[in-house]
């Protein structure tokens, strides 16, 4: 809220510099900034319009001659319709820094020739001065504004820009802010006056009020004034409203706005003669009811919305906005001032369903005090009588079905200490609470009875009182200690640990981690996930995404990684090895989606050469598999790879990875159609591991196996097999023999003299026994058995 310091100082003495005051308020919970921007008016001063003449060459323009003080006069071109001789105006000289009235951009005033007349200055509008968006006419100052005085000095008011938290509706007012200032600076609050002379007819004879839906309207106060004269507000009122960011309209509306800003209670004035049967009915709207609101929009109402109606029609949307038909106009002679308390939940529901948030609704939705309604209606009536004339009806209509009780809280001294960590002396407690308007009585056995002031609807429990004390004394004054209690026992978090280990292993292997948005595009998804799968288990969708192509919770990391790869290719990077460790989301009927921890990566480009340049061999399936092997070896797992077919991957270049016969992931080359869809014209390899599938296989600590004392015998065996025989099968067959420790492939050869359709695989085979040194004969017999088995099972021939 914009709080002009001048206005604030009507209710409390301001004994701190503005910056310091803002700082103290901020620490106590009301975030405040001292407004300085837009008021850099060093070449703008108060001037007197001496005469206004027509522009010789333009009908719409006029020539204004202004007195700048000390005998200085200047004639400038002025386009504003409201400029008139005798006015006091804000005049900008050449070089003044203003806001361009049309573009809204900052500009520096330069002399110009406008339709043949030289103009070296300007009479400013509010918009040009950065005061508001008003650009319809010039800013007209008070008659008593001293000619020649710098505008900054004349209007020189400092504005506190406050950010009110959702619980403190009471701070959406100048008085509420004054109460905080008073408590923080040990000053008194001066409440505004609300007494006036009632000399009219009794209210009951002029109008009646009935609350039909008392669950939505807790109190309805109304005062009536007859014989008023509607017109513009006086300068002081207009200036206060403008300074607070509210646009002056007429004296009646301005007073309701003024009291709302002053006290925080939204008010509404009805033209009493337009209220059917002079009867106010507070009721739910009918389902087919319509109302043209003050903003000239016709609104369709429904039975969830509360309206202020007369005997036949809705007149206002309760607590949100008035209606056009019953608004106060120049012709209005009698008014009814409404000051009511509405159900905050209902106000918020209605205002959000209409997308209509007003100064009234943001106050009501925070929950206003029911006491305030009466305070405010009296204050408004008093001010109106002074400005509009007329006679106030005797008495105030007050329909108040369930009178709120004064809230008292029993607070123990011990509780305050338990929460704040310090034992506050009772004198300090009482003094602090009293300064905030609380009543505070010390009763036996170390308790306080605290009476909550009517405007504090947010305070209800002892810990609220603890906060009041803490924030006014200052959180920085509270002690600071370390936790002393027992450290809770540690629960294992194997999934977190596994993810950490996999991330570290991939980073150690040289991959870069990326993190992508969890929401992706359906069209892209269908490129990398089988559309059939997408149709029988559609991804979880966001109803209100930030953008249309980020509305599906990703069921795979593939889209994200391809996006990252494509992005970096656009920046000219062709070699990449990236991974992401994140969740994918699988829909579950009637329940939260299943969030699965996944790790996936993409490998593309070329290996680094000796110079670190990506000019080596192309990165391929085997590099990608190397990363998977590296990670799984780190985890102490033994996995198997099997050729497989997988959507989005190239058949014949795809392997399923399994641990203990369970699929844990997949790797392979992305199908050229997939990479093509991302405009990637190079081979890209994918690996994808489900950490959830991996988790059950992660064992405890690895056990030591003694280093074998007996020497091993190493021999090479080369066999010729059909080209489509997987090398892994040959290796597995050799390693199945009891004396063989390992069989390591070290050469693959095709071409002469190997017959077409065949390949030669060469293995280095290590034979070793646990308990003795192998003899030549033992090794030879084992070798023969191996060769025999390979011949029988894989049609392998020993290569001579």
């Amino acid at each position, binding site marked *: 809220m914009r709080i002009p310091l001048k206005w604030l100082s009507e209710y409390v003495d301001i004994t701190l510099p503005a910056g310091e005051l803002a700082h103290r308020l901020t620490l106590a919970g009301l975030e405040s900034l001292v407004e300085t921007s837009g008021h850099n008016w060093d070449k703008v001063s108060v001037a007197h319009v001496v005469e206004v003449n027509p522009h010789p060459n333009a009908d719409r323009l006029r020539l204004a001659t202004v007195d700048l003080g000390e005998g200085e006069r200047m004639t400038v071109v002025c386009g504003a319709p409201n400029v008139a001789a005798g006015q006091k105006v804000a005049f900008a000289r050449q070089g003044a820094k203003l806001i361009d009235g049309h573009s809204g951009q900052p500009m520096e005033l330069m002399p110009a020739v406008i339709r043949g007349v030289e103009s070296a200055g300007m009479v400013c509008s509010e918009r040009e001065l950065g005061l508001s968006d008003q650009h319809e006419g010039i800013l007209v100052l008070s008659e008593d504004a001293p000619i020649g005085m710098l505008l900054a000095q004349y209007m020189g008011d400092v504005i506190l820009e406050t950010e009110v938290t959702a619980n403190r509706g009471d701070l959406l007012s100048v008085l509420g802010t004054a109460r905080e200032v008073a408590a923080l600076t040990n000053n008194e609050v001066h409440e505004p006056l609300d007494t006036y002379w009632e000399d009219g007819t009794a209210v009951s004879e002029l109008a009646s009020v009935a609350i039909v839906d008392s669950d939505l309207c807790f109190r309805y106060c109304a005062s009536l004034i007859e014989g008023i004269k509607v017109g513009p507000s006086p300068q002081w009122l207009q200036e206060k409203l403008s300074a607070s960011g509210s646009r002056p309209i007429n004296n009646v509306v301005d007073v309701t706005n003024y009291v709302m800003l002053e006290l925080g209670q939204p008010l509404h004035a009805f033209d009493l003669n337009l209220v059917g049967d002079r009867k106010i009915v507070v009721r739910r709207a009918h389902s087919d009811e319509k109302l043209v609101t003050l903003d000239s929009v016709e609104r369709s109402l429904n039975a969830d919305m509360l309206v202020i109606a007369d005997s036949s029609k809705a007149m206002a949307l309760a607590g949100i906005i008035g209606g056009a038909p019953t608004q106060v106009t120049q012709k209005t002679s009698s008014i009814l001032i409404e000051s009511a308390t509405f159900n905050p939940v209902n106000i918020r529901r209605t205002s959000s369903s209409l997308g209509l948030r007003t100064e009234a609704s943001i106050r009501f939705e925070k929950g206003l005090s029911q006491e305030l309604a009466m305070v405010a209606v009296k204050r408004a009536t008093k001010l109106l009588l002074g400005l509009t004339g007329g006679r106030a009806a005797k008495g105030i209509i007050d329909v108040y079905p369930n009178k709120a009780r004064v809230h008292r809280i029993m607070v123990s001294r011990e509780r305050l200490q338990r929460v704040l960590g310090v034992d506050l002396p009772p004198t300090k407690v009482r003094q602090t609470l009293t300064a905030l308007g609380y009543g505070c009585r010390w009763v036996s056995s170390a308790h306080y009875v605290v009476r909550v002031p009517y405007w504090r609807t947010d305070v209800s429990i002892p810990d609220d009182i603890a906060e009041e004390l803490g924030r006014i004394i200052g959180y920085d004054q509270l002690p600071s200690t370390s936790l002393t209690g027992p450290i809770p026992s540690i629960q294992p978090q194997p999934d977190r640990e596994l993810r950490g280990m996999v991330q570290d292993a991939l980073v150690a292997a040289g991959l870069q981690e990326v993190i992508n948005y969890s929401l992706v595009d359906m069209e892209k998804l269908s490129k990398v996930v089988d559309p059939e799968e997408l149709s029988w288990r559609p991804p979880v969708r*966001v109803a209100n995404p930030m953008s249309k192509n980020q509305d599906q919770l990703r069921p795979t990391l593939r889209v994200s990684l391809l996006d990252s790869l494509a992005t970096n290719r656009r920046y000219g990077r062709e070699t990449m090895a*990236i991974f992401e460790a994140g969740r994918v989301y699988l829909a579950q009927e009637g329940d939260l989606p299943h*969030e699965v921890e996944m790790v996936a990566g993409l490998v593309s480009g070329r290996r680094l050469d000796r110079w670190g340049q990506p000019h080596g061999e192309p990165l391929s399936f085997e590099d990608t598999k190397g990363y998977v092997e590296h990670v799984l070896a780190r985890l102490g797992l033994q996995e198997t790879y099997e050729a497989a077919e997988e959507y989005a991957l190239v058949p014949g270049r795809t392997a399923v990875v399994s641990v203990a016969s369970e699929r844990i992931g997949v790797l392979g080359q992305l199908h050229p159609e997939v990479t093509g869809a991302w405009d990637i014209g190079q081979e890209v390899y994918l690996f994808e591991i489900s950490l959830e599938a991996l988790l059950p296989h992660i064992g405890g600590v690895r056990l030591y196996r003694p280093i074998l004392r007996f020497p091993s015998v190493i021999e090479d065996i080369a066999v010729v097999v059909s080209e489509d025989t997987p090398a892994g099968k040959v290796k597995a067959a050799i390693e199945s023999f009891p004396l063989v420790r390992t069989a390591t492939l070290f050469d693959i050869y095709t071409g002469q003299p190997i017959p077409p359709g065949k390949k030669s695989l060469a293995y280095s085979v290590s034979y070793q026994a646990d308990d003795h040194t192998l003899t030549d004969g033992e090794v030879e017999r084992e070798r023969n058995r191996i060769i025999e088995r390979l011949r029988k099972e894989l049609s392998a021939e020993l290569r001579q």
Partner: protein
Amino acid sequence: MSTGELQTLEAQANDSLAAIADETSLEDWRVNYLGRRSRLTEILRGLSALPLEERKQVGAAANRLREALETALAERRDMLRKRDVQTFIQQGRIDVTLPGRPIPMGRLHPVTQTQRDIVACFEKMGFQAVEGPEVEWDYYNFEALRIPEHHPARDMWDTMWIDYHRDGRMPMLLRTHTSPNQVRVMERQQPPIRVVVPGKCYRYEATDATHEWMLTQVEGLAVDEGISMADLKGTLYEFAQQLFGQERRVRFRCDYFPFVEPGADMSIDCFVCNGEGCSTCKGAGWIEIMGAGMVHPEILANVGYDPERYTGFAFGMGVERVAMLRHDIEDIRLFYQNDLRFLEQF
């Protein structure tokens, strides 16, 4: 046999040794002059056939010669090796400024790094990291945190809702903060509790240099007998010093979150201007790091704790914001654009 022959032999040997420049020739020389079949060995072997007087004389001379030749050999060998080393050193000079053979360098994403650092600070203080679901029920994200439907505090968290309808409402959402885990943790554990909960959160929010619709938070919760606001201050102060440096000052101010009472937020003094006011801290001298407060007694009661016996504090911070401050990153959107030129700087 005479000592004269020995003298000739010595001269010969020395001459040829002086001409030798490599280890192989040196070995040939040794075989030739000192080997089993060398003339000298032959002489020594033939000594027994000589008359006593001559044997003594020749024997002494031959043995002297043998020693002399062995010494000369050792010296020559030593000289040659030194020379070889010298040659190697001279010829083997390399340009030490050439780059090493490259090993590809992987890195964790800066958000992962900062998140790990934050969690580690609290782990040292006895907190344990746990996680929770990113897709949440309205109940945990809002209602259980004292933010019922149509509560004005809902404005603090603009929400992305899951397209799932039940009883005319959308009860499922992308969590807007990690705070639902306060309730989730307390529902399954009894005090004492000290946990931190890192994870992704989502807001229905337009992006700019300081706002992202996806963000990472770390939530904290401690509940036990005797925990006060003073412990909250001490714990967070310790954290700030660990993460931002011993010289950092912290400031607590009152703030409002429906699930804590009293509520607070913590700022650190600006490390760019040391509190003088600059663009990083928007002139305030302080930079807000996290929201915090004492767990509202209603929330403790709702999970079945006795709020008269137990108190606790909670806090939550944005990891990207912390990372931006630590690394002087001016635009939050850089994190999830995944430009390698950005990621490879960390």
